[in-house]
């Protein structure tokens, strides 16, 4: 009798292809929503964690015009895109402030089409002797410190280690590729100040004098500050903004908290949408099972007569629900994985926020859990109809011609 009831579930589903396909697609939609929501939320969280880990600085100082032109959050996420510069003496003057532990400057150049790309690549010049943000990142990924005419490439650049890349018709060698961070840092190259100076001179020969005749060693795009333990960061920011003209100090953690708050808002909306889809799916499936159960009363009554127990009858209905949801869950999860793995980069570009896709193992675990959760909805939605069917009065149904 067990074999009969097991086979019956599958045969019942095959006998009603339209209903079965409809419910499978509904379940696929649910599992797609759960998987996609989990992946997006997880990737956003990883992105912000990555940015937090990479930044390292407590305060960032930029030119006042840059700060006015761009949102503080954008500056934190990718630095300044325009070509406003500060005098290096600003960094020197900061060393006199009490409470400041480390000061390091960065100089940005924006390349033209470098023979690789139709949009500019940001070249970040840093001083390895004072730097405390990029060097730990380099060490973490076991990469080399770039020498003169050598660069570190962000993960988005399609170049290999040892390959040469041209900026302003000047070749530099890629000595390492950095790990993915999920931020604009991935689309930049990093070089020491000497290399940047050479590239700036090359740019100048093409009529692009970004520094208005000044030497690269005398200019900075941003200054990163690490504050001593126990010092009041907000107070320092206020003092710097009051004392120094033409620059703006921004507290990085406050900005990241702002971005994090925005991301948690997005995560809440995603969770709410997934919840609504889940409830709707269960409601629709339950309605379909109740209606079809009602239409199949004579069938179930006949099964009772030939000896199928009430429990087995309920099992048939629950098994049908589980099979439909399991099939739909697998379909929806696979589609979701394919979409996010193949189109992940495009999606990250659309969002415009730190977005770091989890590794394959984590993605698979997420997919399995999402499929399981969606499959469980099949059991939930078939419980009430299964209970009702197990309580049918066989004699009444067959006598009165239901």
């Amino acid at each position, binding site marked *: 009798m067990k074999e009969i009831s097991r086979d019956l579930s599958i045969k019942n589903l095959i006998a009603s292809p339209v209903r079965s396909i409809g419910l499978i697609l509904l379940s696929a939609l649910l599992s797609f929503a759960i998987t996609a929501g989990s992946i997006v939320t997880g990737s956003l969280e990883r992105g912000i964690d990555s940015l937090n880990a990479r930044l390292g600085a407590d305060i960032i100082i930029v030119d006042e015009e840059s700060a006015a032109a761009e949102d503080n959050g954008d500056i934190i996420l990718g630095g300044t895109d325009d070509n406003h510069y500060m005098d290096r003496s600003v960094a020197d003057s900061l060393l006199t402030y009490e409470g400041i532990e480390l000061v390091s400057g960065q100089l940005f150049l924006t390349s033209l089409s*470098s023979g690789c790309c*139709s949009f500019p690549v940001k070249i970040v010049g840093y001083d390895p002797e004072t730097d405390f943000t990029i060097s730990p990142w380099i060490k973490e990924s076991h990469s080399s410190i770039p020498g003169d005419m050598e660069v570190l490439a962000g993960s988005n650049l399609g170049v290999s280690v040892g390959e040469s890349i041209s900026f302003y018709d000047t070749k530099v060698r890629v000595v390492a590729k950095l790990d993915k961070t999920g931020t604009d840092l991935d689309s930049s190259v990093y070089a020491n100040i000497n290399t940047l100076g050479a590239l700036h001179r090359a740019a100048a020969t093409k009529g692009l004098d970004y520094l208005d005749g000044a030497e690269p060693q005398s200019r900075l795009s941003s200054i990163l500050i690490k504050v001593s333990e126990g010092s009041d960061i907000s107070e320092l920011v206020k003092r710097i903004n009051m004392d120094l003209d033409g620059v703006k100090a921004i507290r990085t953690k406050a900005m990241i908290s702002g971005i994090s708050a925005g991301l948690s808002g997005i995560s809440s909306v995603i969770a709410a949408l997934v919840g609504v889809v889940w409830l709707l799916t269960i409601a629709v499936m339950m309605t379909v099972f109740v209606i079809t159960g009602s239409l199949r009363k004579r069938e179930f009554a006949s099964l009772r007569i030939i000896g199928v127990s009430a429990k087995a009858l309920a099992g048939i209905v629950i098994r049908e629900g589980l099979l439909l949801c399991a099939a739909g869950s697998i379909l929806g999860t696979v589609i979701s994985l394919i979409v996010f793995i193949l*189109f992940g980069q495009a999606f990250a570009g659309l969002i415009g926020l730190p977005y770091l896709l989890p590794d394959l193992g984590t993605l698979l675990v997420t997919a399995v859990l999402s499929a399981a959760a969606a499959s469980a909805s099949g059991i939930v939605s078939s419980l009430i109809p299964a209970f009702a069917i197990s309580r049918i009065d066989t004699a009444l149904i067959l006598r009165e011609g239901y």
Partner: protein
Amino acid sequence: MKNKTKIYNLLPVILPLILSLGTATVFKACGPMDNGMWMHCHGAQNAVVVVGIITAAIIALSAVVKDLRLIVSLKLSAIALSLAVTLVPGVIISLCKMNTMRCHAVMRPFVILFAVLTAVEELASIVVLFRKGKVSDERNLQRSFD
């Protein structure tokens, strides 16, 4: 019924046509540079469009011929072409050097997805073809291969 069967057999043509049409329109490669010149990825896009159309034509032909051997040969050709087209963007024809650009982020994943779907669909249809042949008349199947 015969016409209905023929139309049904022509449905697989949709996948390679979506591949060609999609690559030429919504999922196209990067636009021209400021100086008006096209980059390598544009060539990859055009190659995919052409191969997709050829694949669609081969699948359409396999739907109208009667000889089983020829049908299977055409379907195998379609599979080979579909798998080959996945190598066009990025392997056979290089793309832009920045992974965030359209050719990498949009065109290449789309080409891989629909090319693999086409190959899988044609492989499944070959399996179904042989299974139908086994169930109906094994002698006829043997005769058509002699």
